[in-house]
């Protein structure tokens, strides 16, 4: 099962982080955010922090996959999961870059 988790894990983490950032974005743009006394700038900062967290988690996953303790049972699943680990890092950077280039809620 560990081999299967290694292969499916990296992108599942991408999906979780991506959805979390999107959910946070929904919250920032909702009335709840202003009702809590927070500004759009706070929102942008929160989103940035979330992105940095997402990228670090993703890099962490990619590094963790190299740990001998979690090694796959065959070279094949080992290398496939390593490719996927780094591909997911790139996917995170690419899919979250809007946080720094577009307007937040309009």
């Amino acid at each position, binding site marked *: *099962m560990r081999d299967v988790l290694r*292969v499916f894990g990296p992108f599942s983490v*991408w999906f979780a982080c991506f959805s979390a950032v999107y959910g946070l*974005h929904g919250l920032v743009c909702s009335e709840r955010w202003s009702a809590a006394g927070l500004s759009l700038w706070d929102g942008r900062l929160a989103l940035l922090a979330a992105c940095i967290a997402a990228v670090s988690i993703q890099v962490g996953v990619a590094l963790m996959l190299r740990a001998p303790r979690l090694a796959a049972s065959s070279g*094949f699943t080992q290398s496939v999961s390593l490719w996927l680990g780094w591909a997911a890092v790139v996917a995170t950077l690419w899919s979250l870059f809007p*946080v720094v280039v577009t307007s937040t809620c309009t």
Partner: protein
Amino acid sequence: MTPLRRHRALTRIWASDPGWKGWFTTVNHTDLGRMFMFTAMIFFVVGGILAMLIRAQLATPRSAFMGPEVYAQVFTMHGTIMMFLFAIPLIEGIAIYLLPKMLGARDLAFPRLTAFGYWCYVFGGSMLLFAMLTGLAPDSGWFLYPPLSSTLGSPGINSDFWLIGITFVEISAICAAVEITVTILRFRAPGMSLDKMPIFAWYMLVVALMILTGFPPLILGSVLLELERAFGWPFFQVAEGGDSLLWQHLFWLFGHPEVYIIFLPAAGIISTVLPVMARTTLMGYGWVVAAAVALGVLSFGIWVHHMFTTGIPHMALAFFSAASTLVAVPTAVQIFAWIGTIWKGKPQLKLPMLWILAFFATFVIGGLTGVMLAVVPFNWQAHDTHFVVAHLHYVLIGGFVFPVLAGLYYWLPHLTGRRRFFRLGEPAFWLVFVGFHVTFLAMHWVGLLGQRRRTFTYEHGQGWEAINLISSIGGFITAIGFALVLIDIAINALVTLRGRRNPWGAGTLEWAMPKPVPAYNFASLPPVRGREPLYDDPGLDLRIARGEGYLGDPGDGRRKTLVVDIASGRPEQVVVFPSNTALPIVMALVTGVAFLGVLIKAFWLVPLAVLGVAALAFRWVWSLGTRTDEGLLDAGHGLSLPLASASTRPPGWWGTAFLLVANATFFASLLFGYAFLWTVAPNWPPPAYLEPGLAGPALGLAGIVLAPLGLRLAERLLRAGHAMTPGLAIALTGAAATASAGVLAVLASADPQGHAYDAIVRVIAGYVLIHVVLAAAMSVYLAARRSAGFVSPDRYGEVRIVRLWTDYAAITALLGLAALHLPGALT
């Protein structure tokens, strides 16, 4: 024992019942795979006839052929049938038929579940056909957006048919997915490690996991919408704190992965067939596996690209536009692997290859128009025009139907045991290919000129007449082509000569069996050393027949196959399959009665049917396992293995685990819906949040701790040879406590028709209650199993299964109660 005598002995053990009875009692994957494929083809014909009606209507402006009401039913049913009753079941059928044969097993992991899934599909599909024939068909488009589909826009029964029928069919998809996952992971030939699996199995593993996590959001959406329609719980009605956008999120959380659930199996077929047609092996196997996995997971993160015109902020648009462009990368990896495969081999232009080339030409165009649509400004222009219709048909027909036809022609000798003699297939191919492109290229064009989709007519003088007429003529040519394909397949299946065992010279295990396929697949299970066992060992088929593999001895007359370790494929256990039974069809019928009760608003039928299902489920699981410790069984080659039912994690444990993955996705979608309404629905907060008080949370927490502890204690006691009763009693007490917390929450909530908040509180509490009761019932069942001797200090796998359910119920109860009480506690 001679091969012939072995064949006779194994056939006696594995054969379905003779005559018409066999249709209803078979649990064999070869039969059921064929039945799935055949039924899906019938729905293809129905969907195709509807497409012809659409094209007849649109051929001329101001056509008097159909009015708007009929047209709405026709396009809705066309889309619904093609997606839910043709494409998905056809894939399930192909996988059910092929996987055990490719993996070197004698059947799928849960044979009765295959049959149950098939009958759910047939009954659910029949409901929709019935609706269509009586003029009551759903008519709000295949994605059934409320408020058009809610009682506001569709007061009649039409939308209910969709919600009930499709949910019923989705049960079948979930069953198939659980089964396919467990089969691929554990029911393989000895020695077939993950890196030696046929590439199709990798693809289907991705697809099955996608079904388990992709379908639950839609099932949840359907449940909520049906609750709204039947009882007025306003989940999607803005005035009462609901939001119709919630449906769009739930639908597309399913809908976009669905597109890849359809495409990936087709890609798996190409990755299997193309190398054989090119007389070589697949280039970049590892990259293709990585690409399939990446594509499958990525497809979950792009659902909002179907909602670009709903007025969402720029940043959200950019997120999903960016993520949508990402899928181009793994798709390209596969395309290059295929081109590389053709390059390195010696391609032959046989009929399957023709369909694959048609796939390339068509799918690439569909992919490019897809990238166009992922660009937001263009999307705003083209949204809801025939450009989108053209795009989706390029992807669905080019990316699914063409590869599947390549596959059908490739495996036809396998399915029928005959060689193809009549050559209708080639002219049919050209008719379809040319007709298809005429139809849909033209459709792009009128779409860009502004013709809206789902609109029953258009005016003279808009410059669309000639293009629409050409498109319709193309449509009829395509239809004639498809009809010829079906005729070609039918006559070649019925009347031609017996064929050879491995006509294409392929390397995968499904070609190592005699034709017509025996009910037991392999006379003995072949040890596997490479990805193409038949290339590695040309005499393999004969040695299998001579019983030189594993489990070659028909022995005690039980249906046996091997269970292997997931990663290495090392044989670990012998599994004994159940034999022919009418239980699945009866259970599907009784399940259908529950659905029917909701459909015709005879709600008293529902609890009766649920009781019936529970009783049947009891019978179902009771027949598993043994009352004695059998010790080790001889598996051949000097290998002695225990029975799977005596292991700590029997196949049922794995099935449960994956079913719970689907279940957890359902629950997560429910919490997502709740959070979504809380953040963005306009009429929030509700008049009052639930007052948590002390009793509810205290009872709930006590139960959440007690139940899992009780089961662990029960297992301890059992393994030490004592009675399990004290442990089970604690578990039941815990269940009662959690259940009371749920009931208290329901009692404390306000009128669910008044505000979406109170409605969703009831759904969450109901979900928790159902699971707690289910886990409790399983504990009682466990006590019965112990006293009947099925569970013993050495055979406690069933305790582990019940423990899994109990833990799951506890975790969801914890999350559910927290979700119910937090808003009230915070304000």
